[in-house]
């Protein structure tokens, strides 16, 4: 009951923020609307018992990426861009294509029938690794860490390498060439 109520609130935040993000003229307003949208998504993670992802969403997206965006908006002079035309000439075509795909998705989801979510158990099981977690005290973060550092250790390391490449690459791109 309360879940339903909160779902609609967070969905409203998410979609309202998203629509404001793509329609605002000023890039700073867009960035602030994106913060609202990301907060809504964080709330949805919390409703779905993904506590770790909730924290990551707040710290990384809202704390990290958004500050990065705002920095770039301040660095790059956008006053000129704000006065010009905001949408492409083909915007109507894009809107039609999106509506078409949206209708298709709604049709598909209608056909699948209601997928009932299981009533909130204390913890999701790491069933794929074969070890159905028994300890009732294990929270979301412990289970996620177990899965990440056992079964997904190699992808984890590859992703850390990707981050290293991204750091070096963005520094190289953004620095003034002498």
């Amino acid at each position, binding site marked *: 009951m309360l879940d339903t109520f909160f779902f609609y609130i967070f969905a409203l935040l998410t979609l309202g923020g998203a629509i404001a993000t793509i329609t605002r003229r000023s890039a700073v307003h867009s960035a602030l609307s994106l913060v609202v949208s990301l907060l809504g998504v964080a709330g949805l993670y919390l409703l779905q018992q993904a506590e770790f*992802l909730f924290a990551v969403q707040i710290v990384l997206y809202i704390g990290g990426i958004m500050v990065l965006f705002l920095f770039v908006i301040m660095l790059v002079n956008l006053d000129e861009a704000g006065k010009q035309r905001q949408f492409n000439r083909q915007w109507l075509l894009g809107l039609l294509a999106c509506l078409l795909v949206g209708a298709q998705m*709604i049709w598909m989801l209608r056909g699948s029938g*209601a997928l009932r979510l299981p009533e909130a158990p204390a913890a999701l099981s790491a069933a794929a690794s074969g070890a159905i977690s028994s300890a009732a005290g294990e929270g979301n973060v412990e289970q996620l860490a177990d899965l990440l550092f056992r079964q997904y250790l190699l992808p984890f390391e590859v992703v850390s390498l990707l981050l290293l490449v991204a750091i070096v690459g963005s520094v190289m791109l953004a620095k003034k060439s002498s």
Partner: protein
Amino acid sequence: MLHPITANHYLMLSAALLLIGTLGVLTRRNIVIVLMSIELILNAVNINLVTMARYWQNLQGQVFAIFVITVAVAEAAIGLGILIALFRNKETVQADEIDLLKW
């Protein structure tokens, strides 16, 4: 009386967010906002993954969501780096004015 929330609600929401993001990528001229729309798309994917993790009672979906977030961070950093380099050379952030590779 409010209905209980099913996975379909979450999937609908994620589809809507995906479409809004796609619309932003397709129609906006400002590259900064195009990059923000890409973040919206990746968030829609994450909602989907987390919903399926709950539906199947399997944490792998959340692990994938962590990887998606990491790649999104790398993408944003590189994208904004490119944007700064581009602005330094062309003095514009409008996507359709950057047409050096167009024939």
